[in-house]
């Protein structure tokens, strides 16, 4: 990749299509970022968790995700979410016996606030990409 990538935005009505669509788009961006296969799988797993948990925390009736691919890293920005929704989304991703999957897989995890809305930013990268 020679040029910096502009963001891609995907907005899916909260419902049964969020998972199938989001995992495809995230998987494609992970491949474009040249992430190795294990990290690509991690990115798809994070996408599945976001798809499953985000609808409970979104402001509107849609799950909105902005994606940015860079060499060996992708960034997801999920939102707008309700106040407290950023942290709640991460907490909801905990799996009994496994722990919090998003926290374990992400290289960066941050809740951004814009007015009364929150956005969860998740970064997945290949070790040594920075």
């Amino acid at each position, binding site marked *: 990749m020679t040029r910096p*990538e*502009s963001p*891609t*935005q*995907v*907005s*899916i*009505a*909260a*419902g*049964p*299509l969020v998972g*199938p*669509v989001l*995992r*495809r*788009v995230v998987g*494609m*961006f992970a491949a*474009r970022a040249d992430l190795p296969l294990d990290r690509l799988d991690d990115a798809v797993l994070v996408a599945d968790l976001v798809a499953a948990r985000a609808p409970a925390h979104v402001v509107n*009736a*849609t799950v909105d995700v902005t994606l940015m691919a860079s060499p060996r890293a992708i960034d997801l920005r999920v939102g707008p979410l309700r106040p407290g929704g950023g942290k709640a989304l991460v907490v909801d991703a905990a799996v009994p016996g496994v722990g919090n999957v998003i926290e374990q897989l992400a290289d960066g995890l941050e809740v951004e606030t814009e007015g009364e809305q929150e956005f969860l930013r998740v970064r997945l990268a290949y070790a040594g990409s920075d």
Partner: protein
Amino acid sequence: MARDHAVPEHDSDIRLTVPARPENVAVVRHVLAALADALALPRAVTDDMRLAVTEACTNVVRHAYETEGTIDVVVRPRGDAIEVIVSDEGRGIGPSPDTAGPGLGMPLIAALADTFEVQRDRGNGSRLVMRFLRSRSTPAMGMA
């Protein structure tokens, strides 16, 4: 295992906004493939829809912008049809002075979609509205 593919209309809209670059046409195609899998669309419908939308997006990439811009794709399953709207904010769909081509894109889209409408607003982009009936069992152009 049988799956229930009935998706309520209010749960089914998808909007994708990508930079108008050739590599992002593939992103749009992947989204359509995911939708087709989830709704168990007939292969003929999926193939025609993907090809027509690929042509529409390629038109935007080639003709809509002098430098950079975006492709906006909205997918709406509506009753017995899938509606796909491809829009841009550039100079609109159609030939541009700096790129040449055989001009097959629009006729191909017209042949592949069950209904098709272009809404041009020169200087403010264009919208291409395509509808594909779910019930179709054979490809529109016999290209199975």
